[in-house]
């Protein structure tokens, strides 16, 4: 019924697509590796001086940028298919964003913007951009680190940390509420953000009610070390 010729041609086309996938797999595997090292480098933030951790974490940025350059090279050749292969780098990208946003907040107390994240990763927007959803999920990922961070900071004696984090998360939370989230992945992560905020509010409450907050000097996370 003439099916065979058509399927032969499909096979050729699928072989080509598989070749792209192999290239993507390899680029993403580098990205994955660098991200994992960056993550491991940042983790001691919970018990050691944050300065060192951030510095060490940032040292993996060139490797990460290189991996994105490879991804860019592959996708640039087929610009309309960015989302066809999106799943390959989606998870890693969300982790990268969360690590960058966490470091940025630790250093400046500010939220890393979408544009700044793209710049930090040296993405050329017209060839390979940072998907907005991935950026937002990355922010939620970061937020889920904060309750643990606050707990450990309080143990280290930084009693003003809960208030600062509570204000930051509260701002982030009301910013997210500006978005009309559908019933999707992002909405679930946003519910997580609410939970993180609640956690931090409870820690703030613990500190406040014991009078540990008043009269202490407020410092940036850095300074408390």
């Amino acid at each position, binding site marked *: *019924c003439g099916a065979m010729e058509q399927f032969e041609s*499909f096979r050729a*086309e699928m072989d080509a697509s598989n070749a792209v996938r192999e290239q993507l797999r390899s680029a993403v595997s580098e990205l994955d590796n660098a991200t994992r090292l960056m993550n491991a480098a940042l983790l001691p933030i919970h018990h050691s001086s944050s300065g060192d951790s951030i510095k060490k974490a940032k040292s993996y940025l060139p490797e990460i940028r290189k991996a994105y350059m490879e991804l860019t090279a592959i996708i640039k050749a087929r*610009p*309309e298919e960015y989302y*066809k292969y999106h799943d390959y780098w989606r998870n890693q990208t969300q982790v990268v964003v969360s690590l960058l946003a966490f470091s940025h907040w630790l250093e400046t107390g500010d939220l890393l913007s979408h544009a700044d994240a793209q710049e930090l990763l040296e993405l050329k927007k017209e060839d390979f951009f940072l998907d907005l959803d991935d950026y937002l999920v990355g922010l939620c990922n970061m937020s889920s680190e904060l309750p643990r961070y606050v707990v450990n900071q309080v143990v280290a004696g930084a009693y003003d940390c809960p208030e600062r984090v509570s204000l930051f998360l509260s701002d*982030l939370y009301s*910013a997210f509420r500006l*978005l009309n989230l559908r019933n999707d992945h992002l909405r679930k992560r946003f519910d997580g953000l609410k939970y993180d905020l609640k956690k931090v509010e409870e820690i703030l409450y613990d500190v406040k009610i014991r009078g540990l907050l008043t009269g202490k000097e*407020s410092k940036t996370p850095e300074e408390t070390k």
Partner: protein
Amino acid sequence: MLRAPLFAATKRAMSTSTATNAFHSRFQQYALQLDATNERRERLVKASRDVTIHSKKVIFVIHRLNDSNRDKIVEQAEKDLAAVRDAHVSRVAREVEGVDYWKLKRAFSPGMQEFVEAATVVEFCKTGKLLTLQQLNSSLCGVKDASGVSFSVDIDDYLLGIADLSGELMRLAVSSAASGQGLEASARIRGFVQALYEGFCLLFYNVDGGRDMTKKVEVMLQSLVKIETTCYSMHVRGSEYPASIVDS
């Protein structure tokens, strides 16, 4: 000493108005982007649902086919199919251009697969042949996307659609066996689905879409075996007595 009151002030300020939130304006930008995509996706989901519903109706029309009404039914089905294309597939096309085709694909894939199923089942009933992807896309050349480019079905949706086609053909084969005739019709369906199945076995599927496909190929084999068994049982019964007796 310095920042503590500052924070407190920030908090009070926040309490009366959210406008001071440092990154609200950025998030308002994000909201615009998300809203645009979401509205587009909503429209696509609705259009896709309509494509599905009306394609299914075309398939139902085909299932009302029998030896006496063949031409009329096929003609009707073709007309209905063209109507689905003009009224609903065109609504899908209008929403997707460039990078959004793949971004929003999940929203309209189900509809397009059902459309493929309907188009190929009609073609089979008319000509006994497989409507190729190229032929299908030629028939869509009048359907333009937002930038005026002709909309087209991609390989994945085409393959998933014709995988389901085998299920409908199985129903047709059983029907024609059930109507007490159709040894020849069933044999034609058998050969057609065998060829389809062999074609599918030639392909291999990447991990992501692969799972869907593997399952569909299994279902396809089940349909094929049912068709073959139908042919078999008609055959052994037909072989038991000389044809002369049966015809008498």
